[in-house]
Every structure is written in C-alpha cells, then in structure tokens.
C-alpha cells in the first residue's frame, strides 16, 4: 500500500572547507525528522577538496554524504550547484530537503525548487511531521512536513504544507534549530558524485571577494546585553558595553543602533541579524519591533529597560524596569558588584 518514503536531505554549505553553522544545525534537525519517518539522513556536500568534512557530518547523524568535488564548485555559484543537485534529486527522489537561509542558500534553494517544480517554504522556525487533510483533493496525507514560519513582517505565523511530494523543500535561518551532541567515531557512507558541467554552466565569474570571520558569536552566548536607539549616542552606547563587561555578558544591538554606526552588524539581533536564545537577555533602550523580537523572543528570561511604559518590548519581558538607561544601568552594576 504505502509507497516507500524518500530520505531526508540536508544541503551542506561550506566556504573554504568550513561548514556553515546552520548546515550543522540542520543535520541535527534532519536526524530528528528522519527518525520520526524511519528514513535516512543524507547530506549534499559540494566543493573542492572537501572530503575531509565527511566525518563531522557522520558524527552528527548523517548516514550518507553525496560528495561532489570539482574546482568549479569551489565557491557557490547558482547554475552549476543547481545542476549537480537536480541530477541527484531526479536519481534518488528524496522526501525532504533542508537548506540554510543564508545569502547563498536563498539563491540556490529557489533555483532548485523552480527547476524541479517543487514547493519551497522560506525561513521556517519549526518543522515537524504530522498528517495533513488536503481540502482540495479531500485526501488525508500522512507523514507530511509541517513548515511553520513567520510572515507579514513577523505579524503572523503560518503553517505551510507542500501538497506536491517532489520533494518538500524548506529554508531555515541560522541559530533557529538546536544542535545536538556529536558522536565522534559514528560511521557513515560517502557516495562520490561524478560532476558533469559544461562551459555554458559556468558563466559567472567572481572578480573580487572579501569575507571576514564574524567578530562575535552571539548564538552561543548565555547572557546578552543588547542596546538600542534609546542609548542616544555612540558615547551612550558605550554604557552598554561597560555594563556587559561588568556582568560578564556579550554585547548585542538592535538594527537602529547598528544603522547609527554605534556597533557593527555582527552584533545585530533580529530578522536580518542573528537569532539568539540566551539564558538572560537584557534589552536597553529597545522598543521591541517585530523584527527585533524575531531574533530574541526565545530567550529564557528577558529584562526590558525603557522609559516608555508603552514600549512593545515590555509585552515579551519577564522583568520590566520603566526608567532611563543612563540611570538604571549604573544602579544595576552597583547592585551586581555589591552582591555576594
């Protein structure tokens, strides 16, 4: 009766032999989905001299790595990457493919989906397996991927289901899915793919490239002090940094503070920045726009400091201090230092 379900695939984004964090997070999520479905997790790894990355993928639960190595795949480029992936989809018919919603992932996934005539759901924040009653056909489809995502600038949360099975594709932002523990030594397969590209596939030429490692890693931070436009000035923002240092926290910011040039973009939390889930998030002079909340609402405890009692940030806070930051922060430092 029931036809065999295809495997869960994860596209592995790598640059210079380093796997993007989001790809590792998705491997862990993929493992969970595959266990529910009783299928395998397979990774798509494209690049040049990247075979050495396979053990890391195996250790996180990948059963098989499809490995495509070629100098022309060294850097991401939409047309050759799409071609290689489409060939594998046609051959192996996966059930689900997960992509990181990075700049490259948001270029590649839609191109692949368009070529395959598959549905693609963007920026999912939650993925789980459930049955779906398709009103159009009157059928109940078992084991479908529920693709849950915010839209309308964060004002709504939609559950989306792919009614065509070929395959179910989604993108997920970095920091949204949790990592699980690696089991070093866990074994898996590697399937080498023969790469066939012709000149017409390699039209784009990278003339110049500049890339820097992130100066901070907010995703792993346990305590975050975040400053917004309410800090008033660059000097005002320095108070946030001092405060963070005093209590052993990492510094983050809203986009308004980043745009004002008080701190660089690596520190931005929110829809177009990083998603964080610390033990404690202290928002100082941040109004709490939907875009900002999208990146921090999952924090275990939130303290909001704002002189406007009507600021939306209070609606997601566990503790609220209605007051001026320049007044409250020094008192906080004093109380912390005076403690124990």
């Amino acid at each position, binding site marked *: 009766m029931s036809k065999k379900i295809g495997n869960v695939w994860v596209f592995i984004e790598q640059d210079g032999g380093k796997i993007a964090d989001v790809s590792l997070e998705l491997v862990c999520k993929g493992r969970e989905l595959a266990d529910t479905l009783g299928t395998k997790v397979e990774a798509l790894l494209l690049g040049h001299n990247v075979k050495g990355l396979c053990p890391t993928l195996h250790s996180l639960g990948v059963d098989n790595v499809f490995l495509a190595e070629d100098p022309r795949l060294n850097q991401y480029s939409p047309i050759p990457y799409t071609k290689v992936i489409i060939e594998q989809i046609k051959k192996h018919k996966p059930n689900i493919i997960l992509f990181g919603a990075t700049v*490259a992932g948001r270029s590649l996934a839609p191109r692949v989906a368009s070529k395959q005539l598959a549905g693609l759901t*963007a920026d999912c924040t939650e993925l789980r397996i459930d049955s779906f009653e398709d009103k159009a056909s009157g059928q109940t489809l078992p084991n479908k991927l529920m693709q849950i995502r915010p839209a309308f600038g964060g004002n709504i949360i*939609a559950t989306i289901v792919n009614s065509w099975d070929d395959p179910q594709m989604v993108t997920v932002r970095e920091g949204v899915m949790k990592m699980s523990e690696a089991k070093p030594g866990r074994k898996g397969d590697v399937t080498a793919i023969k790469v066939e590209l012709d000149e017409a596939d390699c039209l784009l030429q990278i003339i110049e490239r500049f890339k820097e490692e992130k100066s901070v890693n907010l995703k792993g931070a346990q305590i975050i002090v975040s400053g917004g436009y309410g800090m008033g000035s660059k000097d005002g923002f320095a108070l946030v940094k001092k405060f963070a240092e005093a209590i052993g926290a990492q510094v983050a910011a809203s986009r308004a503070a980043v745009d004002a040039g008080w701190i660089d973009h690596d520190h931005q939390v929110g829809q177009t920045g990083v998603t964080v889930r610390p033990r404690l998030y202290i928002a100082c002079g941040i109004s709490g726009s939907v875009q900002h909340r999208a990146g921090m609402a999952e924090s275990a405890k939130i303290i909001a400091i704002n002189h406007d009692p009507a600021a939306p940030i209070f609606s997601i806070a566990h503790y609220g201090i209605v007051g001026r930051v320049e007044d409250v922060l020094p008192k906080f430092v004093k109380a912390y230092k005076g403690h124990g």
Partner: protein
Amino acid sequence: MGLTILVFAKQVPDTKNVTGKAMKDDGTVNRAALPAIFNPEDLNALEMALELRGRFGGKVIVATMGPPTAANILRHALYMGADETILITDRKFAGADTLATSYTLSCAAKKVGTFDVILCGRQAIDGDTAQVGPQLAEKLDIPQLTYVEEIRDVKGGKLRAKCQIDGGFEVVETPLPALLTVIDANTPRPAGAKRLMQYKKAVTRSELLAKSGGADYEDANRLAEEEKRLKKSNLWIHEWSAADIGADPNRIGLPGSPTKVKNIQSVVLAGGTYKDIPPTEDGIKGLVHDLVAEHILS
C-alpha cells in the same frame, strides 16, 4: 540602442505600520489595518534601473502582478521616471505561491520579448521569502546575482556588480541577459513634480472603462479613440490577463502552487505579564538577588 531594463515590483501591505490586527478572525488578511505600498526594495530596484538607463541609455519597463489596484504602484513608477508599465492581472492568478508567481512573471517577460537586465527587489515585505527573483531567473534560463548593492559596469554584453555575501561581498561578472535582486543600498528618487502632474492621468483599460461608467456598444468607438490618444501621449498602462501572456492555467494561481497555507495565527502579544521592577537602587538590588538565586546570573 541602449539597454532594455525590466523591473518587477510588487504592491504589498505595509507590514511595518500595522495599525490593528494583521489578520481578521476568519484568518484572512486585514487589508484595512495594512495600507498598500510599493514594496520598499522594489523602489531600490527601480532606482537602480533608472540610474542604469542614465548611464547607458535605453528604457525602463516596470511590471507587476496583482489586483487592479496595483496600478497605483505603476503610476508611482511613472512619476519616478519609468518609460512603460504593465499590470499583469487576472482572477486566475489568485492564491499563487512563489513558484506560480515566478512562472507568471516569466510568461510576461517572454511577452515583452527581448531584454538585457531584469531587476527585482531582494524580498517582498509580506511574503518575506526572497524566492521569486531566483525562480524567475531559472524559468527564463538566465543567470542571477542576488543581494546586489551596486552595478559597477556594463560592457561588451557583460555586467559587473557588487553583491553582498554572508560576512562580506563579492564582485561578480555575468553575461547578459541576467537577473539581479537588489537590496536597500541606494536612495530611491522622489516622484518628479512635473511627471506627477502628467502621469496621474495614466490608466489601464479597466480603469478607462470604469471611468466611462462601463462600456456599452455605442461607447466602443469612443473608447478606442481615447485609448489611441492615451497611448500616443504615453499615458497607457498595459493590462495583461493570463490568456494575454499565454500562461498554462495549471501552472498559475492556486492550482499551480504546491505550497498550501494550512493555518495562520496572528502574533498577539501577551502584554502586561512582566514583573514590574521599580527603577530604584532597592528595586534593582532585589532583581539582581532573584536572578542570582535562580542561577540566571552568577
């Protein structure tokens, strides 16, 4: 000579200025709480197109798929300096996901015929997917550059642009035609006052019909004359239906959309459930004490 530049723009509800609940209780979009605007990054795309025309000559055509009221953003495009505009509208397009949308736009692009550059915004602020640009490029079988900040040069059938990547940038060269998705890295020009006076009279065929109180047989000739006159003075917004662009009915609208929205929830903020800490030394001391006791602070 010069470049034929095609800009795809979307009319969107202004999700940043939600004045009430974004969704009605029946789960449909509450348009009343969300005024319709020109998708912000599509204004950046149009600005880039106008700058490109300024540097290399040519013409800028702006097209949108949407309900009849989307003609408003096309008039705005004319105020900014677009040469020609196209409204792609049909009840059959309703319920399109990004796959069906990009297919529809690809049919329209093919009807336009030849073009050198297609510019899209990176992302629309309602659907928020950033998928339509790359999907449209694939449908037209042309290369794509995404997250474009600036066009460096166009020479010998090639275009060079600076694109954002994670943690940096790339300068990439592509043969033309190509599709670019544009981020908010320029300042869209305001509507020109003179152009505004001139082009506020621009209409689609449906608008012309509605203005003349619905056409009857007698009117037909008069309307045809009027249409000719409007076209001559460049006040005509093309209006294309699914049939006009030769779209396969199974690939547009709801039937052409693999993704189905199962349910939608409004994000309603709980509000007022936080513990109010007085901004005094004692108040904050108490808070720090609690946090340390709960091992949140150490």
